[in-house]
């Protein structure tokens, strides 16, 4: 793997002026589109994108519109990792050099339905960067619960009422499940910390073989938040400790942010329509789960 020190830094001042995800039909303020747009700017023109069914493909390929300004293809819902692996192998067989193959898949397309293909891709160490933009539900089909929907979330398949408080399960531990494959590079990120996300994409760009980034990406439509607060909410999620920023590299975990104090979980939740109904006991359950997770991360990763 290229040494981190050798990789030229990318930031707002020096990144390419070119836009590779432009004129798309994502809702105003869509966090997923911030993640896709920034990642493509870091990866550059010589990029093949593969996207399963989900919001980012739905808003990018509305025939005859083609909002991707570099090579991009829609894949089968469960097969994005295998199709990307095929693209990377095909381009290599054609003698192409200096290119990157990337997947942009949602939380449902990654943690649930696309998982088997993703696991195989990492096992074979195919030369693909897999980015999961996590808006915490199946948004494109109208807000159904996925394996990454957090406790308490109101979705159409986990409605909040007298019997259940919305979603009753906690988020799948996707990052550690991926790391358990002993992948060369994996990271978590949030569009609320854009420079950190850019640095991680830049690092993954230089990995030969499989790499993975799990980026937290707000969805004003599905979360019931004002369009202008998409970045703020994604930052709040990290600051209140429900989302953590970490890396897995050379067999080691690294916690990128270890705040002394967390911001209020309640404030973060109450800003969003999907959590508005939550009782104090439900919020306490979220906090307890957060604290357990951090205790373990701090014990094992620091």
């Amino acid at each position: 793997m290229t040494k981190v020190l050798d990789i030229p830094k990318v930031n707002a001042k020096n990144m390419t002026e070119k836009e590779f995800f432009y004129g798309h039909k994502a809702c105003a303020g869509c966090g997923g589109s911030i993640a896709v747009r920034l990642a493509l700017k870091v990866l550059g023109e010589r990029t093949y994108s593969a996207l399963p069914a989900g919001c980012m493909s739905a808003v990018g390929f509305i025939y005859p519109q083609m909002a991707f300004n570099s090579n991009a293809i829609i894949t089968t819902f469960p097969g994005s990792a295998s199709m990307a692996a095929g693209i990377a192998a095909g381009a290599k067989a054609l003698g192409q050099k200096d290119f990157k193959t990337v997947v942009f898949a949602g939380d449902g397309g990654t943690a649930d339905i696309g998982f088997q293909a993703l696991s195989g891709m990492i096992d074979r160490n195919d030369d693909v960067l897999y980015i999961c933009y996590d808006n915490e539900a199946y948004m494109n089909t109208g807000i159904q619960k996925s394996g990454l929907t957090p406790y308490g979330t109101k979705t159409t398949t986990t409605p909040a009422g007298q019997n259940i408080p919305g979603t009753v399960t906690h988020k799948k531990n996707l990052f550690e499940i991926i790391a358990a494959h002993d992948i060369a590079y994996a990271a978590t990120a949030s569009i609320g910390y854009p420079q950190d996300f850019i640095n991680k994409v830049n690092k993954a760009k230089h990995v030969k073989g499989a790499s993975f980034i799990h980026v937290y990406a707000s969805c004003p439509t599905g979360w019931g938040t004002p369009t202008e607060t998409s970045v703020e909410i994604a930052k709040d999620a990290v600051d209140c400790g429900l989302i953590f920023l970490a890396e897995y590299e050379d067999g080691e975990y690294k916690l990128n942010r270890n705040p002394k104090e967390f911001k209020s979980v309640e404030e973060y939740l109450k800003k969003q329509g999907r959590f508005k109904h939550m009782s104090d006991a439900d919020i306490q359950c979220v906090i307890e789960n957060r604290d357990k997770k951090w205790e373990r991360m701090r014990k094992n990763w620091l």
Partner: protein
Amino acid sequence: MIKMNRPKHTEYKTPTHIDDYPTGPQYDAGFLPEKNAGWRTFKPVVNHDECIYCLRCYLLCPDGTIMKDNGKIKIDMDYCKGCGVCAHECPKDAIEMVKE
């Protein structure tokens, strides 16, 4: 003028012959037959006297419609959706959202 860094709006002509259709299931990369300007209720207006050109708005615009133009920021109003992220995130409050 919007530079070629961004795809431009492309006129769509209804195909009349099989040869007018794209090869494969898609048109070329960056083929944009429709603008997004009609989605806006509010539009961002930049106060260049307050702007310190930190490029935070440029970085965070979900639509990539903010561009660098000789040390100033400029917005492609054909594709800005008026989400207000730029104004909300500006450290100098140099962008105001004004009703269309």
